[in-house]
């Protein structure tokens, strides 16, 4: 790590320092607009986490997964069941998170093992079906044995806590007062940084090259001795574990989970983040996640005042108007930036050649 810092130019170092300061200051700046904005920032980071997890599957290995949210759901419900009054269990986070990663990973393997030989879009629909199966089970496993509490969801979930230090409440450290969301923010930033480093290292490794090779030409990859089934399964399992961890954090942060949060549209959103940002390109995926998680929220605040300004009254239902604008934004970005907003240098070249 030290070597890596030394290799940077002063300019890059300065930029890095600037980003670090901005990241540190963000929750306090956001808090000026209300804690709601800190929460929005938190969700943006959580989506970065998820999008990077899916990026391993879709971006690196080229496997179209439309049921990614299932792993997120598994992680979230695992936390909810092991740390809430629902079963009276209150496990600590350091036990649940790794377990969540492992269980989600197992789900990934269970799904992947029989289906990974399927080609592109067939795999997409199977993963989509799997996501729906998981959601339907969560929705209905409240009778005859109440496991998930059905559509009502599970409430009063324990927050992340280290000893007596809870991330959900306001506390004062070093003379600075941190609200719950602000504390979660720093936790999430740390986790997200770890995920970014992991993603980057995976991409530039023996395994990452194998994924890319499979994406480029599966038959040639087999011919050079890559066990394509296992390597694909690995991508699936890795992506799933990321989803599982993110789900756990989500449950703890919200204090509440219900099947509603894990519908197909969420899978689709995360995929949109990956593709819209620039598949396989880590900075692009981060950009996509931030944009697509913040944009609908920003629109939530914008649609009513803008309508009042233009027409003097609220003409259209704000909720549907904001989603409409969101959908249009997806269409327009894909129309004018088909490789995403921030594609990898190779992809950019590839597209430039075609024109």
């Amino acid at each position, binding site marked *: 790590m030290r070597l890596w810092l030394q290799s940077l130019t002063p300019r890059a170092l300065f930029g890095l320092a600037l980003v670090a300061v901005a990241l540190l200051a963000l929750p306090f700046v956001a808090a000026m607009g209300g804690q709601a904005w800190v929460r929005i920032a938190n969700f943006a980071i959580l989506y970065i986490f998820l999008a990077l997890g899916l990026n391993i599957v879709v971006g690196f290995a080229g496997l179209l997964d439309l049921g990614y949210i299932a792993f997120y759901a598994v992680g979230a419900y695992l936390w909810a069941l092991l740390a809430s009054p629902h079963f009276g269990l209150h496990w600590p986070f350091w036990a649940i998170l790794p377990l969540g990663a492992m269980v989600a990973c197992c789900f990934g393997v269970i799904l992947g093992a029989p289906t990974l030989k399927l080609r592109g879009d067939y795999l997409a629909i199977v993963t989509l079906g799997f996501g729906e199966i998981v959601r339907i089970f969560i929705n209905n496993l409240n009778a005859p044995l109440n496991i998930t509490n059905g559509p009502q969801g599970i409430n009063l979930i324990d927050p992340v806590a280290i000893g007596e230090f809870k991330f959900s409440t306001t506390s004062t450290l070093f003379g600075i007062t941190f609200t719950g969301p602000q504390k979660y923010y720093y936790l999430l930033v740390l986790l997200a940084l770890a995920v970014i480093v992991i993603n980057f290292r995976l991409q530039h490794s023996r395994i990452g090259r194998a994924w890319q090779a499979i994406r480029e030409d599966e*038959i040639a990859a*087999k*011919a050079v001795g*890559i066990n394509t089934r296992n390597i694909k399964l690995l991508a699936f399992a890795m992506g799933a574990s990321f989803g599982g961890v993110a789900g756990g954090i989500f449950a703890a942060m919200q204090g509440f989970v219900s099947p509603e949060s894990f519908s197909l549209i969420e899978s689709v959103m995360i995929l949109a983040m990956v593709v819209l940002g620039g598949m396989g390109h880590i900075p692009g995926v981060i950009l996509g996640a931030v944009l697509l998680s913040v944009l609908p929220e920003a629109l939530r605040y914008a649609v009513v005042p803008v309508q009042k300004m233009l027409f003097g009254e609220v003409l259209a239902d704000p909720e549907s108007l904001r989603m409409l604008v969101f959908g249009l934004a997806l269409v327009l970005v894909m129309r004018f930036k088909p490789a995403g907003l921030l594609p990898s240098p190779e992809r950019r070249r590839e597209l430039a050649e075609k024109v």
Partner: protein
Amino acid sequence: MSELLLEADAVAKHFGGVKALRDVSLTIRRGEVYGLIGPNGAGKTTFFNCLTGLYVPDGGGFVFDGAPLKADAPHQAAERGIARTFQNIRLFGNMSALDNVMVGRHVRTRAGVFGAILRDRGTRAEEDAIRRRAEELLHYVGVADRAGDLAKNLSYGDQRRLEIARALATEPKLLCLDEPAAGMNGTETEALRVLIEGIRADGVTILLIEHDVKLVMGLCDRVAVLDYGALLIEDVPAVVQHDPRVIEAYIGVPA
């Protein structure tokens, strides 16, 4: 160690009613350059695909390096020491030339996910070794100056050479080349001949499908001729060249 590297025993493959391979049996000795020729559609590439596990033969099988080859396991074929190139070049187009060859090292290296994430000393050392070996191989086949370019942007001849480098990266005992000289001009073909000679001198056995008769007769120690999926003859080039059945297969009239 047996003198034979590969024994094909009555390998058969059909697609629907078309018999692409009819009980082909042949043997390849260690260290030789073995040519496989025949008119278009004679089953040469199908034979390659069976050998490298991309097709499952409908009958017969292979014994490689003293043990039977598992059908339908291309990655295991590579692991056992069979590498190949493709008639219609199959590089990883959007990866750099160097990365293409580095992928070839996959089967001879170990680093897994945890190594990749932790970047421990062992993983870094392996990664360095992979890179060094890949650079050597690029140099060996003569495309070192294009190491950073995307494979698909290389010239045709360079792509063929890169594919050979990638195959060599798997440390094969048997290198199968599917029409490596196709589309090459005289100079390029000559350079290719020198390259293949060099690879043979390094102790790699070579199975060569080729249409360029001059190249085949000049390079190969022995040649087999396939026609309509059946083996016509397997012998030294001088004999094969003058065999009436071979001439008939190529020209279409009895000689």
